């Protein structure tokens, strides 16, 4: 399950799931939802992403920033994600399609994920939440 939360200048993305991986995946969906209506994005091509960071929270920000980079350089939007975490290493696939401005009407461009309101926690056993503010 994903959501957005309030930040005065920009917007927060939040993912919840039964595992850290699921929370990361849902937050990525929230990232796409900042840009466009989710149901306009089809799964046509896949991209793999690898990152590594000293702790889980920095890894979460790296994950979102890796997506931001792929969106910008491939000019794609992504809809479905499959994340694998091994300590503080992440390996993921993201599937989506090239941006079609007329159909996707991107509302904003995410510049980067920030450390503001950054949290990756297990709120209850089996209920993980990953969130941060993104600069648009």
């Amino acid at each position, binding site marked *: 399950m994903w959501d957005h939360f309030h930040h*005065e200048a*920009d917007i927060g993305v939040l993912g919840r799931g039964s595992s850290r991986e699921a929370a990361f995946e849902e937050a990525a969906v929230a990232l796409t939802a900042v840009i466009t209506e989710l149901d306009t994005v089809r799964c046509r091509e896949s991209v793999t992403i690898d990152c590594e960071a000293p702790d889980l929270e920095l890894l979460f920000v790296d994950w979102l920033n890796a997506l931001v980079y792929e969106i910008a350089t491939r000019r794609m939007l992504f809809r479905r994600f499959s994340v694998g975490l091994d300590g503080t290493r992440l390996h993921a696939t993201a599937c989506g399609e090239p*941006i079609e401005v007329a159909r996707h009407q*991107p509302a904003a461009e995410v510049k980067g994920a*920030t450390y503001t309101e950054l949290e990756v926690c297990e709120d209850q056993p089996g209920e993980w939440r990953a969130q941060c503010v993104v*600069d648009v």
Partner: protein
Amino acid sequence: MDTSTLTRISDYEWRIEPQGDMNVPGIIFASQALVEAMDEKVREQVTNVAALPGIVAASYAMPDAHWGYGFPIGGVAAFDADQGGVVSAGGVGFDISCGVRTLLTGLQRTDIEPVKTRLADALFHSIPVGLGSTGNIHLDDKGMTAMLSGGASWAVKRGWGYREDLERVEEQGCMTGAQPEQVSLHARKRQRNEMGTLGSGNHYLEVQEVSDIYDPDTATTFGLTRGDIVISIHCGSRGLGHQIGTEFLKSMAISAHHYGIRLPDRELANAPIDSDTGQTYLGAMRAAINCALANRQIITHLTRGVFERILPEAKLALLYDVSHNTCKVEEYVIDGRPRRLYVHRKGATRAFGPGHPDLPEVFRETGQPVLIGGSMGTASHILAGNREGGALAFSSACHGAGRAMSRRKAYKLWKGRQVTDNLHEQGIIIRSPSSRGVAEEAPGAYKDVNAVVDAAHAAGLARKVAKLKPVVCIKG
């Protein structure tokens, strides 16, 4: 923010007394109403910045201060390297050297009105805007390095502007100390398709009418008369700058421990100016400044091309180009001693006053133009830097009003079509690739920039010269 916990220095200056880890006081320049409307997060961030090593004089907040990333947006802080001062990627931001440039046209409203729609369409067609758009200039590695070294000066040499433009850009269009070799492959790759693009969100190109003149003498020097048409471009260093901000935020957050720096907020990640990380960041950040200056120069060239076709009698001359997300080395006299300081302005505009040696001759008597962008469909303002002796907050001023509501709330309240139609009824033409983007940027989603500018004027940060109202707005 609760003003009863602040020391009221004057109607427009409020002090957060040093306590805890603060090395200097916090100073907020704003009316009481603006301060009361500020989030408590602003206090927290001003206070956190005040605790950074080597900070000089105070941690400042401008009248438009709001919750940012480590630094408040509308934050100013200067550091002395000789006192262990730091440089912070969060104190500059993800959009390094985002800024505004304003062009004079020599046209009046009556010249624009008959061709307004054609002009809007032509600008929208010619200037790449929004996520998914592509610039028409694709630089190879050598070209990228030249651009990162040369900035707007590089762009003019390539034929995208005139030599006289450069005098009207901060740093004469080229930031010294840029180190393209510190700019990563990722950042270069992200910029490859983005040269000469406007970006998205609150970036725009606006054709505007001078609606009010407040300081006739300065307006004359600036070339402004009531009824004149000007053009303002608001954008920054695009993907390259964002990538540099992202990378150094991470490296500074990780290296802070190594340098013995405690971070109350990871977003305030910083490094000693005289460290490898600090110097590398400065080199990359200066290269990103050049990228922003080059970008606005190219967009100027594209805009001139459009006007040549539609209004060939126009002469688009650059008034000035200012940046509001930078860290620059500047000299100030503090307690009788000249000091070389690293001045961070995060969502704050430099406002050099009369007599400043770095200003072009034309602005030596008036002080520099300070260009304050409004949001889509609202007024923008041109101010001037004030008396050098009264240079407050290291000659800084505000940069625009912040958001009054979240994007989600704005999108719930308004539909893009409705916003476009309402503005059209007021004589303003909007062009954007995204209906939702227009809704999120609706005028009502932003705070009142007039109140911010009035406070900046009353506080003495800069003085009002002219007000601009939008006629055509191209946004991403």
